[in-house]
């Protein structure tokens, strides 16, 4: 098929980039030799455990830890009284790692212990006696906005967070009046959670000078280091060092973008006990005490003219923030992107309120708000197309984004393969061939940041590259591999640039003592930003090698080429040398030198201004998903028959790992669409296990085709854009649209369970 063929490279023949090289650490993992946080034991290590609140909202009247302290093998018991006043978590610092006086959710930490064994630590928790005075809780964010609602934090006087999410581009009121067709709907999404197969955990220890080392499976080593240094400062440990070591990470998906109570509590316990302290979550804790994707209530109104051109989009959201504030409260900054810029629409209004409740607090999860916003937008696109009497695919193509566009938010669209993605889906899925009863097709598109995302002062990543005497490379990157494959992306980029093989490149990304700064593995930014950081370092070393080789081979430096572990002068077989040999010559000569380079790449993107405008990413990733479903009208069960996920990735640095990102994203998205829900009842998690939290299993796996559209982005490393998150962004609306196509019911509340489908079918039939 022409439109999904890999675009030939115009610059030069590539020998490593673009190849499906297996993940560099896969053999270690396949042999069971990879060490995760679960697997690490240090000499003298103690085991920490955390006690959580028994109520969603309560005053702590009294805590008695004497029996726990007296238990043999217990080294320390901490309560909120032992936490320094300034030790708080979250970007607005509203959350101490152990609460004092008041708890505001079931996951609030009330005490912690360290003991010589896990069993003793657990026993000690049972011996802590706490007297609570239960208070009325508030669990519905819209009710929490009402004037007489109980307050989650009384001193704030309101449950609504002070966040700036209020924008108006163009003139929505005028555009609405001039629209030929307008639709208005309400959508809701609920809590889902990352379900990393490796649960969360940390080991903290101090050296004799009170410098901290912490092992943690974090996605943000540099920002975590900053958080930990702030904790040390709050503990009175000024001017100390905090070293963050990342073991192999058993899944991230956004869950590890903040620092958490277990890490800060491990630090407190380790300091108190003068021993390493490990806190490992069990699966129940992982469900209860890690942060979810934030639930939303979404009101959307959009319109088009008689030719099907979008005229305006007006959206309002209420986000359940939970009892404390983590990055969940900033997801509207990313929601703004699809709201203002998925398809061409000049007049856009968006208001989001993040509201405190006594529920669990939300955080980042793959897509960072985009899946929620896109669920509403793309469901509404189908509703509007139907009202306007237009073909839903044609309607999308009329409004497609294109290269050279600047959107109302100020996003500059550079490379854009949206139309090609839509065409690829159309070609693969045969939309008009749904004669079978209960079978239907759906489509939905996406825009996502693909070239970094400046939501912090720096969006940069550093890389240090050194070559040894044998032609091998060690590259120390700020970027984080959590299974998605950044180690390969880094190695393939460096190998390509230096004429080496991927196996010649050792990628070190595990230790803040040796790796430079990076803002974190989020926003699908690592291939683009960490990739460019590595590429820049490789280019610097390459230039040095060329200069040296020029002297040895007696040819102009710029003409020296690199391939198959050799440097050579094209056209003269005599002028060639293995890179290793050249490096040894450079090293072992008078005034010898070793070849290394450092590079810090900070993309030329912009923070949003006060008007919330700004080109937050250097480039944007696009995609379109199509799905064919069969709905059983007797049971309401939805079966996914076929799935096509077409993505504009700039360039596929590694097609094998790229497919893995897309497949994994789609299946996570299908869970979001159909099965996954953390059931909260008055703030309490009712399904903290894999029996009742319904992930897709091997039995549920679906056929997925993943056409790759290569648009060769001008700023991406070898033209690549990010692809980590996009796979799960348009999945839910594609499924919802297919269900409507199949049986004529529109489900506006995720997940689309058989119960909801059945109820809607009954309502439609007038039962």
């Amino acid at each position, binding site marked *: 098929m022409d439109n999904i063929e890999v675009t030939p490279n115009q610059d030069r023949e590539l020998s490593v980039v673009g190849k499906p090289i*297996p*993940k560099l650490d896969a*053999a270690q993992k396949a042999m069971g030799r990879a060490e995760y946080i679960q697997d690490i034991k240090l000499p003298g290590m103690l085991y920490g455990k955390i006690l959580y609140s028994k109520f969603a909202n309560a005053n702590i009247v009294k805590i008695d830890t004497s029996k726990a302290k007296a238990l043999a093998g217990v080294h320390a018991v901490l309560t909120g009284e032992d936490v320094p006043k300034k030790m708080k978590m979250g970007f607005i610092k509203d959350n101490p790692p152990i609460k004092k006086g008041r708890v505001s959710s079931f996951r609030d930490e009330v005490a912690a212990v360290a003991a010589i064994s896990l069993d003793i630590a657990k026993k000690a928790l049972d011996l802590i006696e706490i007297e609570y005075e239960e208070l009325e809780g508030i669990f519905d964010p819209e009710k929490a906005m009402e004037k007489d609602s109980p307050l989650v934090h009384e001193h704030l006087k309101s449950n609504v967070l002070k966040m700036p999410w209020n924008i108006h581009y163009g003139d929505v009121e005028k555009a609405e009046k001039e629209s030929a067709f307008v639709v208005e709907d309400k959508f809701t999404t609920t809590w889902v959670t990352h379900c990393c197969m490796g649960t969360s955990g940390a080991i903290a220890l101090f050296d004799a000078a009170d410098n901290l080392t912490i092992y943690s499976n974090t996605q943000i080593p540099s920002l975590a280091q900053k958080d930990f240094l702030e904790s040390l400062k709050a503990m009175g440990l000024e001017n100390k060092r905090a070293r963050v070591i990342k073991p192999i990470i058993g899944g991230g998906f956004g869950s590890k973008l903040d620092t958490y109570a277990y890490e800060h509590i491990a630090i407190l316990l380790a300091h108190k006990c003068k021993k390493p302290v490990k806190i490992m979550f069990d699966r129940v804790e992982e469900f209860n005490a890690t942060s979810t994707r934030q639930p939303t209530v979404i009101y959307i109104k959009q319109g088009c003219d008689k030719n099907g051109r979008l005229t305006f989009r007006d959206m309002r959201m209420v986000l359940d923030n939970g009892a404390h504030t983590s990055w969940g409260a900033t997801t509207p900054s990313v929601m703004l992107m699809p709201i203002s810029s998925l398809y061409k629409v000049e007049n856009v209004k968006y208001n989001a309120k993040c509201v405190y409740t006594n529920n669990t607090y939300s955080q980042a999860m793959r897509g960072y708000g985009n899946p929620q916003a896109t669920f509403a937008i793309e469901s509404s696109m189908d509703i509007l197309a139907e009202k306007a009497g237009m073909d839903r695919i044609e309607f999308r193509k009329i409004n497609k984004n294109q290269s050279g566009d600047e959107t109302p938010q100020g996003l500059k669209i550079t490379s854009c393969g949206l139309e090609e993605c839509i065409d690829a889906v159309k070609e693969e899925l045969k939309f008009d061939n749904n004669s079978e009863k209960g079978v239907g097709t759906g489509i939905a598109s996406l825009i996502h940041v693909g070239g970094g995302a400046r939501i912090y002062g720096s969006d940069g990543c550093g890389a240090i590259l050194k070559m040894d005497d044998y032609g091998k490379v060690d590259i120390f990157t700020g970027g984080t591999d959590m299974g998605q494959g950044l180690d390969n992306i880094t190695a393939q980029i460096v190998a390509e640039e230096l004429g080496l093989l991927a196996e010649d490149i050792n990628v070190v990304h595990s230790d803040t003592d040796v790796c430079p700064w990076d803002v974190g593995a989020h926003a699908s930014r690592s291939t683009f930003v960490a990739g460019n950081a590595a590429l820049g370092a490789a280019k610097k070393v390459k230039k040095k090698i060329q200069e040296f080789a020029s002297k040895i081979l007696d040819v102009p430096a710029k003409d020296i080429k690199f391939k198959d572990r050799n440097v050579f002068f094209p056209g003269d077989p005599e002028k060639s040398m293995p890179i290793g040999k050249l490096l040894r010559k450079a090293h072992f000569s008078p005034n010898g030198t070793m070849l290394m380079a450092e590079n810090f790449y900070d993309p030329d993107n912009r923070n949003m201004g006060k008007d919330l405008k700004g080109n937050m990413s250097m480039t944007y990733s696009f995609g379109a998903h199509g799905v064919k479903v069969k709905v059983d009208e007797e049971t309401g069960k939805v079966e996914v028959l076929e799935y096509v996920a077409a993505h504009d990735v700039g360039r596929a640095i590694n097609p094998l790992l790229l497919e893995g990102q897309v497949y994994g994203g*789609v299946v996570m998205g299908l869970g979001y669409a159909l099965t996954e829900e953390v059931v909260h009842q008055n703030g309490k998690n009712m399904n903290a296990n894999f029996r009742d939290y319904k992930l897709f299993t091997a039995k549920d796996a679906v056929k997925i085709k993943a056409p790759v559209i290569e648009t060769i982005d001008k700023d991406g490393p070898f033209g690549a854009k990010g692809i980590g998150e996009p796979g799960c962004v348009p999945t839910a609306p594609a499924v919802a649209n297919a269900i409507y196509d199949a049986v004529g019911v529109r489900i506006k509340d995720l997940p689309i369970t058989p119960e909801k489908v059945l109820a809607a079918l009954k309502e439609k039939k007038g039962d």
Partner: protein
Amino acid sequence: MATKISFILNGDKISYEIKDHWTLSYLLREEMGLIGTKEGCGNGECGACTVIVDKLAVNSCLYLAIDIDDKIVETIEGLASTDGTLHPLQQSFVDNGGIQCGFCSPGMIMSSKALLDENPDADREEIKHALAGNICRCTGYIQIFESVEAAKELAVEDKGGKNG
């Protein structure tokens, strides 16, 4: 209470004094340092801890260590040949993108091995059935199925690890 048990672990005869309440995953991971067997839930729900006992794939987090007395136990550590050659399943998981974060991989590979040992020609549906108890959050399973199918081909040339 302590009990002395004897069993074959990855081809080696072992005698070990265990506490009666120990699970097999505890014995392997915490006592014997065989960290290749992962524990993802401790409740038999995720399959990360899958090992093979007398040819049957079991969740070692639920299986009591005392019950392996006189039995043959295979773990992920026993699959590769002594010369370092990966077992066909390990190699095909590596080559076909069956591994991302890798936490589920040892369990996936052991469940797949139990299947192929019994049914070398297992088709896609049989593979799906055999892996139904092994959860993966990274891959969407497709490349895992492809890995198992590719391993069937590789198995023809298998030189064999300790567990054959």
